[in-house]
């Protein structure tokens, strides 16, 4: 990009990303803000205190539920994604395109359709309105992304490292821990972050499968947006954004330092 263009594009990008946060921040730290005023008439921390007070308990437990749920989804995505990605990345076989299609299908089909279809099945299987059911429904979205990321990682993976390690005395099962995981580490972190963030933002699947029993942060937020307490809604919105910001920092740190060397 030429320098002149960069001078225009980068600030525009920055404004585009940051602009939606301005009203959120204003609301979150406002005590009084009436309609025609451009800025809050009075600043304050009421919304934040509400969160940690006795009335905000449902928000904190939703936050905890979201963290636990998304972490579980991320872990499962990586645990399934590593063997799947390894198989797809390292081996040539007939019908690979079919696998690709099957992996893509939950992303192509509208999430509402997937959630409704799953709901009918889950009712029969006793998984509706359970945490396990919600985790499974999130996996339909998160797992394809994790598989994709790890497929890419393994298509540039040199399995000779494993042969070398075995020749140097590492047993068949220790290879995973001593050689493969360290080599694909950055890719695994990215896949886990992807899965975590996708699960973190899920609303529809949680609502339909969870049926109101599994209350996550997006469920709470949706209810708050319809309500009248805008400052609290703004605070919850900010909470919802935080993992994405943290993820950005983690990935910048862990990937920038070591990069993808080793996978060539």
């Amino acid at each position, binding site marked *: 990009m030429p320098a002149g263009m960069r001078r225009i594009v980068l600030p525009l990008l920055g404004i585009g990303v940051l602009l939606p946060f301005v009203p959120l921040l204003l609301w979150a730290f406002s005590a009084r803000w009436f309609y025609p005023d451009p800025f809050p008439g009075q600043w304050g921390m009421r919304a934040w205190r509400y969160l940690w007070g006795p009335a905000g308990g449902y928000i904190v437990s939703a936050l905890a539920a979201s963290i636990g749920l998304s972490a579980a989804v991320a872990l499962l995505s990586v645990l399934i994604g590593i063997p799947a990605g390894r198989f797809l990345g390292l081996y040539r076989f007939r019908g690979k395109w079919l696998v690709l299609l099957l992996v893509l299908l939950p992303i192509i089909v509208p999430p509402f359709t997937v959630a409704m279809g799953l709901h009918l099945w889950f009712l029969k299987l006793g998984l509706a309105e359970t945490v396990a059911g919600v985790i499974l429904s999130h996996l339909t979205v998160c797992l394809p992304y994790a598989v994709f990321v790890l497929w890419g990682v393994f298509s540039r993976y*040199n399995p*000779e*490292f494993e*042969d*070398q*390690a*075995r*020749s*140097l*005395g*590492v*047993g*068949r099962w*220790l290879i995973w821990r*001593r*050689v493969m995981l*360290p*080599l694909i*580490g950055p890719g695994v972190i990215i896949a886990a972050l992807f899965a975590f963030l996708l699960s973190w933002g899920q609303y529809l699947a949680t609502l339909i499968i969870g049926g109101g029993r599994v209350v996550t942060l997006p469920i709470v937020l949706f209810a708050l947006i319809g309500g009248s307490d805008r400052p609290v809604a703004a605070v919850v919105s900010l909470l919802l954004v935080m993992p994405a910001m943290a993820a950005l920092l983690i990935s910048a740190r862990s990937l920038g330092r*070591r990069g993808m*060397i*080793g996978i060539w």
Partner: protein
Amino acid sequence: MGRLILENVGLCLDRKVVLRHVNLTVANGELLALLGPSGAGKTTLLRIMAGLIAPDEGRIYLDGRPITDVPPEKRDVVMVFQRPLLFPFMTLFNNIAFGLRVKGRLTADDRHQIDRIMAMTQLDGLGRRQAHQLSGGQQQRAALARALVLEPGVLLLDEPLSSLDPNLRQQMRDLIGNIQRQTGITMVFVTHDQTEALMMSDRVALMLDGRLRQTGAPKQLFYHPVDPDVARFFGMENLITGHCRNGYFHSAQWRMPALDGPAGPCIAAIRPEAIRVMPTRPDPGADPVLAGRIHRMRFEGTATRVWIDCGSRQVVALQAGAEFEAGQQVYVTFPVDAVHLMPVENV
């Protein structure tokens, strides 16, 4: 100790025969070069020795113990690959210590051993570097050091020099030779470069099309190939079919004394550098002389390769300072003891 025996080893991949009836004995403390053109099955054979591929048939013994079914990590055999394959998530020291750490915590003896090997491979002082901070030669030496610290019975090297530039190659050859003499570790060394095989090894095993064709001292393979394929591989371009009778070799145009040739149909092989091309007929002597015309010439630096039409046969000579013209009448001669005779049943 490291006496490796391969007995009748064979392998098929995708219904294609890759290795056939390979019999090979590597003596303890020997440096054996496994030589052959690419695709001959050298690396596959090396991987079988390392235990990374299981052969379809045959047996492998190390110091008399059958190891055919022993997994690679439990064999006293370590392989160094064509690429250095240093673990990028570790420092050089940790890479070299890798194999020792697998067995347990590093002892003082282990550390001493690592220091010794790092000095031997000229890597001292680089222990804290990451793999990508090392030059190509350093990486290759580190890969060698990582295998050497384990003091394996047999060390397998898969073309470890092919990625280095010519200058570094020579240094690395000397280094490997020195280390082999110092440590006495049995080494099997895969290469497609015949000069490298001949100059470095105690013995050479030549592989062509998945078979071991000849195993022996470098000079033996070079001057006394067992069959025309081996002869051609080492550049014995003049192969003449004929017959040995009463101490003489006869062909359509040639008749010369056969010093220790076999009786019956055979092939005479003469190295191009043994043949002399002269503009005038030499004085008659014991050496055979043939008249011919220059077909073409190719300057190759230290010598010029000359193709001469002698009747229906073409003779190739490699001669320093050859100054001829195409079509010129010349005379070709060679010492009788430069003729190597191979019985035809080996063909």
